[in-house]
Each structure stands twice: as structure tokens, then as C-alpha cells.
């Protein structure tokens, strides 16, 4: 028996993990979420601003991390719409503009059709240069952003006319999959200008441990991976409703498979250790 487990083909583990994720999705299992203080701080950073505040939303991720970051991007955008904030979307990742368009179509155009492009929201598109872009726009936005993503001159966009730099925004909301992302925004915008620039954001699970040291002085709010997204969705749903809309509960839905898969993972780690030590004891006995 021990020999069988010691030489178990790893593909059986893959199959078990597939089933652990697939079955809760198919059965649509949901579990209650209790928001943590950090997620509450993130929520209040958006919610406590007066209506009509200027929010810069930086969508620095790609389809590869859509599963983790898409739900929090949708939740942030919806929250800004509910609060009637003005939304300026930008991206440091080349597929960012498409993901911004996706957010605009899914949230703004379908549920807030009264919002006008150029007056209530705008997509300024992608700029290459990673932290170089942040370094420039933190003092002079127009040096890089001369047009929006469709080529419309920035001076012809009413909501952009008085915007000279990143410091003119009330809040920066950054959804980050890695480099360039939240870390660079903290390094080149929030740290040098602590009085003028306030940043909150969400990130992938892989990058979250690198960002925790910045909390709370340099980064007052952070959503860590899908768990953070689910908690944020819960807060937005509790305050603004929308339980019937499935697209605003993607994070909450994905916590079902998370729970089962994590239980399987813990069981596998325990089983692996038991098998390892049992095998070592048997070797010693020989």
C-alpha cells in the first residue's frame, strides 16, 4: 500500500484537483464571506470620497490573470459608478485597453447607460514604459497622454481638461498582475508624494506577499487575490444591492471551489508527509 502511494502517478493528483474545482462550480456551492479590516479600508477609501471625485483606475493585468483580477476590477468600477465618481482608465500592460473596454461594456454601458463617455468616464489607453510612465505622469500627464485610446485629443475630452498630473486625482485604484503594477505605483507615485497621491488596489495571490510591507502607510488598502475580491463584492452588494446580477458575484462564486481545493491541498500535504515519514521509518527498520 505504502509503495503504491510512494509511486503514485502525479496525474491522479491533477485529476483530483480538477474534480475538486469542477464539482463545486457545477453544483454552484457558495459560502458566506466576512470582510476583513483591510478590505473594509479599501472599500471606505472609495466610499468615503464625496460624489463626483476623480478616480484614476489603472488596469495593469492581462487575460492570463483575468480569473483572479477580473472580479475586483468589475467591483471597483461598479462601486465608482454607484458613487458617481468620474473614472479615468489607464493601462501599463498592452492588453489593458481591451480589458478596460470589457469593464466599460459589462458595467458602465449595460447598468449605468446614463453615464457619458468623456464626461463621466474615459479610456486613456495603454502607454509602454512601465515605471517610466508613472515617473513622468506623476508630474506631467500630458507629456505621454496626448490622446485617449481612440486617438481623441485629450484637450477635447471635457473631464480631462483640468488634469495636469496624477496628483490632480483624488484616488488611484490599481488592479495589478505584476510588473509594472501596484509595487511601481507605490514606489514612484505614493512614496514620493504621500500628501498628494493616495493609492489602493488589488493584486494576484503571487504578488500579494510583496505588497503587504507597504500597508498601511504607503498603501492604505489592498485586495489580496480572489479572497479580497470576494470580500469587496460582499461589501458592495451589502451597500448597493444587486444580488440578482451574477456578474457582480464572480469572486464570491469562485470561493466555493477555493474551499474544496484548499481542503484537498491540505489533505495532500498531510498525506505526503505521513507517507514520507512512514517510508523513512521503514527504511530505518531495514
Amino acid at each position, binding site marked *: 500500500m505504502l509503495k503504491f502511494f510512494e509511486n503514485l502517478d502525479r*496525474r491522479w493528483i491533477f485529476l483530483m*484537483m*480538477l474534480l475538486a*474545482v*469542477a464539482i463545486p*462550480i*457545477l453544483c*454552484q456551492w457558495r459560502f458566506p464571506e466576512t470582510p476583513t479590516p483591510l478590505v473594509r479600508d479599501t472599500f471606505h477609501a472609495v466610499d468615503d470620497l464625496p460624489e463626483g471625485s476623480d478616480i484614476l483606475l489603472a488596469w495593469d493585468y492581462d487575460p*492570463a*490573470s483575468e*480569473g*483572479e483580477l*477580473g472580479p475586483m476590477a468589475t467591483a471597483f468600477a461598479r462601486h465608482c459608478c454607484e458613487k458617481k465618481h468620474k473614472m479615468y482608465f489607464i493601462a501599463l500592460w*498592452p*492588453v489593458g485597453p481591451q480589458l478596460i473596454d470589457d469593464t466599460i*461594456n459589462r458595467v458602465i*454601458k*449595460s447598468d449605468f*447607460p446614463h453615464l457619458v*463617455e468623456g464626461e463621466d468616464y474615459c479610456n486613456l489607453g*495603454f*502607454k*509602454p*514604459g512601465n*515605471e*517610466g510612465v508613472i*515617473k513622468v505622469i506623476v508630474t506631467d500627464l500630458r507629456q*505621454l497622454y*496626448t*490622446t485617449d485610446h481612440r*486617438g*481623441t*485629443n485629450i484637450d*477635447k475630452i471635457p473631464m480631462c481638461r483640468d488634469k495636469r498630473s496624477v496628483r490632480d486625482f483624488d484616488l488611484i485604484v490599481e488592479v495589478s498582475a505584476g510588473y509594472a503594477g501596484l509595487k*511601481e505605483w*507605490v*514606489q*514612484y507615485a*505614493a*512614496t*514620493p508624494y504621500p500628501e498628494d497621491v493616495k493609492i489602493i488596489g488589488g493584486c*494576484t*495571490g*503571487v504578488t500579494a*506577499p510583496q505588497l503587504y*510591507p*507597504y500597508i498601511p*502607510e*504607503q498603501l492604505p488598502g489592498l485586495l489580496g*487575490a*480572489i*479572497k479580497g475580491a470576494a470580500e469587496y463584492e460582499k461589501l458592495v452588494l451589502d451597500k448597493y444591492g444587486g444580488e*440578482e*446580477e*451574477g*456578474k457582480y*458575484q464572480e469572486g464570491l462564486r*469562485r470561493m466555493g471551489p*477555493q474551499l474544496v481545493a*484548499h481542503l484537498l491541498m491540505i489533505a495532500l500535504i498531510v498525506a505526503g508527509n505521513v507517507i514520507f515519514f512512514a517510508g523513512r521509518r521503514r527504511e530505518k527498520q531495514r
Partner: protein
Amino acid sequence: MKRETLVWTVLLAVAGAYLLWRTASFGGATVYVRSVDGLQTTATAWEGMAGIARPSISRTVGVWMAAIFTLCIMSFAYKDNPFYKFAEAVVVGVSAAYWMVVGFWTTLIPNLFGKLFPTWINAWAIPDLSSVHDDNWFFYFIPLVLGVMLLWRLAPKGAWIARWPLAFIIGTTAGIRLVGYIHADFLSQIRNSIKSVAVLQAGAEPTSAAAVLAGLDPWQSAKNLLLIAGVLACLVYFFFSVEHKGLAGKVSKVGIWYLMITFGAAFGYTVMGRIALLAFRLEFLFDDWLWLLDPRGSRPPDWTGWW
């Protein structure tokens, strides 16, 4: 025929027949679109039934391609195979071409040629871009020359010329990142680590030792103490000028514990991230492609299910 090949052929044939039957019966994976401000946006099947939206052939083909490519990539978990290799090659090729096109239209045109030849770019490429020169516009010849020098490495002779712009890139990047790290990660982190180990509750006054003890916020104080102890222990662990024996050895062992807990937390986060990605792809396959479930309520209930 090998037994493994036979099993896979039968499985694929059964799956293919099921897909064909479902598509013929329900029109599975059909994507509906409607026109908003002259642009096509994704709509629900309900809107399609109401006549507000229409089926989109191109987007439906897109869903099928996304599903097939997802399965091709996932097949690597079984073993390396030609389907995986094909999908991998397509991703690499499409990404390279995409980067090139995006780089051309978002950097070269507006940020370089638009500055050097604004009238021409305004007339030919971006009508809303300013058609007059900025002040000091001639400085933009410097990046143009550096760019040409960088491309020189493709020429049969004089590849060394490309080293100059590369040196410029490395120098400026190193400078920018050095300043960023020193400010945000070194100095600010030192400042953030200086915490009081005796945090008083709101309203408490430190008038005497007894008053401090009475007004102490135990949780916040313990948190700060843990943080400071962790920073010091980890610093001792990475301090190699003293042999890790005696007190230094014991403190460095505490540092190892802190590091192990950090790595464990990072691994836990990574697992959570990967499972979220798998859940996302499976949701796509079950919902958008196969119509086995409908969490967003975008279709009539009798269109969703296994049969």
C-alpha cells in the same frame, strides 16, 4: 493501435459526438451582440429572444476557439503532446505580433513621429493629434537616432553600435529603479518598522507607569512587538559577519521561523491564485461554451443543463 491511443480516440469521439448533439439541439456557445453607440457589445440570449440582439458568428467562433485552445493547453497536465505545442506556438506568435502593432501605434506614432512630424502624422494617422510642433521638439531626434542605432545589430556589420543605446537604457533603468527602491523599500520600510510596543487605547494618557499599563491596547502592542521582533530576528539571520552560535544562533533560528511562515503564506497565496485561474477557465467551459450552468442568468433555464 496502442491501448492508450485507442482509449483517447474513443473518449475524444464520444466528447465530439456529445458536443455536436448539444450544438445542434441548443445552439450552445452562441454569442449574441447588440449595438450600443454604434459599437457591438455582448448581449444576453434573453435579449436575442426579444429581438434586441442578434447572434454573432465571429464571436461564437471565438468562444469555440478559446474553448479548444483551453483544452489544448490543459492537455499538458496529462503529457506533452502536439495539441499543446500548437496552442503554445499560436500564443507566442500572436503575442509577438500584438506587441509589435501596439508598440508602433502607441509609442512610435504619437510619442516620436507625432512630435517630429506633427503635420504629416495629423494628416495621415491620428487626426486629433496636434499638428504643430511642441517647444524643443528637436530633442526627439535623440530617441530617433538611439532607436536606429539599436536596430543596427540586425545589420551584418557594425553590431557594436547597438551597445550605445543599450548602455543608455541600462543606465537610466538602473538609476530610476535605484531611487525608487531606496525611497520606497529601504528608507520608508525602516520608518514603517519603528513602532511603539506600548500602544495606548484612545483617550488614555501616559501620566504614570500604572496609567500606561491600565490604558494599554494589548492586541496592537502585541502586533507591533511581533513585527519588531520579526524584523530584528530576520536581520540577524542575514548577518553573516558573526557566527550563528549562542544568542545570535538562537535569534537567527527565530528569524528562520519568521521566514518559513512568510514562504508558507506566499505559497498559500500562490495556490489560491492558481485555483482561481483554473476555476475561471472551468467556468468559461461550463458556462460560455457548454451551457451546463448559467450563474449570470443570461439564458432561458431550459437552454441550460446536461441534456
